[in-house]
């Protein structure tokens, strides 16, 4: 039915099967849209946030998808600026995943503010000293860059590409892509960092606060570094998942191996920095404010020391070691386990830096406060996931995302 739109030389499932998939995830998407409208019309009283939880599930989702979407900027940097040419075989997918992650982040932010119609104040009345201002500017600019990186891919659709103007535009955009990729890396460095800074500058919250250099707390650098390390893991995770679902090999092993290896090294060095940061925080910063490390992880039903071990050891050191060894990278089960654990690890880190910061009491006569999101919050968090799946389905079906697919499946 739609075979004229499908890239030449590749096989896709029947249109009926595709349509059923779209309808199922479209239903989930509509559920999310309904919740979103409820929130916009009735206000944030539809959530379970409260005066202790000013930041909750959404901000975590925001930080989470931006970290996971970090694969786009880092792979782009490696491919276009550093010159790792093999990565041209995975960069399209990294860009698509990044585009989905960043558009989702912007949507979630638009739902999260109390007065959505005033959202533009963050640009117009910008307080340049606020980390959130830096996030807003860099995030929007980088989303523009991702859109520019995604456009040539759309233009390469079999039918669109027949139009000379679009064909030439796609070609010309590819020609100067290195400049856009470098700008994207510059912007990403700052917004990934400033997202880390959001928590790190809170000197009234000893759990979040970190010392730093000049105006940047250490979390600024840790967040950028972790996005560079864990973002490509998410690209690999989704690539592997797409291969499993479509039943096709889409990217050659040497490309996967290269990205996994770079990710492993970045993750390893990040973890060394993270461990030093945690040690300094536990032995110097926190005691100077009257806290022992264990105070941050006790007297509450959820936030135990397990969360620190899970983040750094189980979902940090273990996947890093797997990715650093050739045997680990070449064993598809081990590799998949490693990238899955890494994704959980970075999501845990972002959870802790948002939710645990809010949960922990600072005044001696205050108490830990737990939080369970409302269905509206859950639905609006699942909304971008459904949107992402739909966009991946459409892009995979109609756009030449994987240059090696034809060769690998001939």
């Amino acid at each position, binding site marked *: 039915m739609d075979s004229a739109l499908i890239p*030449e030389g590749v096989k896709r499932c029947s249109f009926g099967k595709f349509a059923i998939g779209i309808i199922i995830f479209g239903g989930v998407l509509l559920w999310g849209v309904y919740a979103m409208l409820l929130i916009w019309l009735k206000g944030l009283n539809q959530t379970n946030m409260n005066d202790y939880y000013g930041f909750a599930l959404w901000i975590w989702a925001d930080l989470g998808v931006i970290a996971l979407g970090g694969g786009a900027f880092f792979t782009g940097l490696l491919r276009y600026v550093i010159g790792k040419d093999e990565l041209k075989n995975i960069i399209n997918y990294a860009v698509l995943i990044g585009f989905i992650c960043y558009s989702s982040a912007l949507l979630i932010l638009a739902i999260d503010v109390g007065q959505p119609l005033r959202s533009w104040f963050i*640009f*117009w*009345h*910008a*307080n*340049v*000293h606020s980390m959130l*201002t*830096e996030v807003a*500017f860099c995030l929007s*600019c980088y989303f*523009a*860059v991702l859109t*520019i990186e995604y456009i040539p891919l759309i233009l*390469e659709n*079999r039918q669109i*590409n*027949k139009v*000379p*103007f679009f*064909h*030439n*535009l*796609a*070609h*010309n*955009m590819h*020609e*100067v892509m290195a*400049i*856009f990729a470098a*700008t994207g890396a*510059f*912007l990403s460095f*700052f917004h990934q960092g400033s997202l880390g800074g959001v928590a790190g500058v809170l000197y009234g919250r000893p759990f979040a606060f970190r010392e730093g250099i000049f105006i940047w707390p250490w979390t600024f650098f840790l967040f950028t570094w972790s996005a560079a390390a864990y973002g490509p893991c998410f690209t690999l995770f989704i690539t592997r998942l797409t291969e499993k679902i479509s039943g096709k090999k889409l990217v050659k092993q040497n490309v996967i191996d290269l990205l996994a290896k770079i990710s492993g090294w970045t993750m390893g060095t990040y973890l060394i920095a993270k461990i030093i940061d945690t040690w300094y925080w536990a032995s110097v910063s926190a005691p100077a404010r009257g806290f022992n490390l264990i105070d941050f992880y006790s007297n509450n039903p959820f936030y135990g020391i397990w969360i620190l071990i899970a983040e750094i050891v189980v979902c940090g050191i273990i996947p890093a070691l797997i990715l650093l060894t050739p045997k680990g990278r070449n064993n598809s089960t081990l590799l998949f386990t490693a990238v899955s654990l890494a994704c959980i690890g970075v999501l845990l880190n972002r959870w802790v830096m948002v939710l645990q910061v809010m949960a922990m009491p600072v005044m001696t006569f205050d108490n830990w406060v737990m939080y369970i999101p409302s269905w509206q919050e859950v639905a609006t968090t699942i909304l971008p996931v459904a949107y992402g799946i739909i966009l991946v389905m459409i892009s995979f079906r109609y756009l030449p995302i994987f240059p090696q697919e034809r060769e690998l499946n001939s």
Partner: protein
Amino acid sequence: MFPFSFEWIWDLSHMIFMGGLVYALTIIGIGMTYCILKTVVDTMHGKGGGQQH
């Protein structure tokens, strides 16, 4: 965001922040303008007709 809003101060923080923003936007703007103009010229010269990429 602009010097005419009352919270604007001509200090180093504003210059660095807004300088970085203008720098990024300029590169993105020039890059896209170049792409579109070159595409118009290429198309007028008959490039890309009926080709597959």
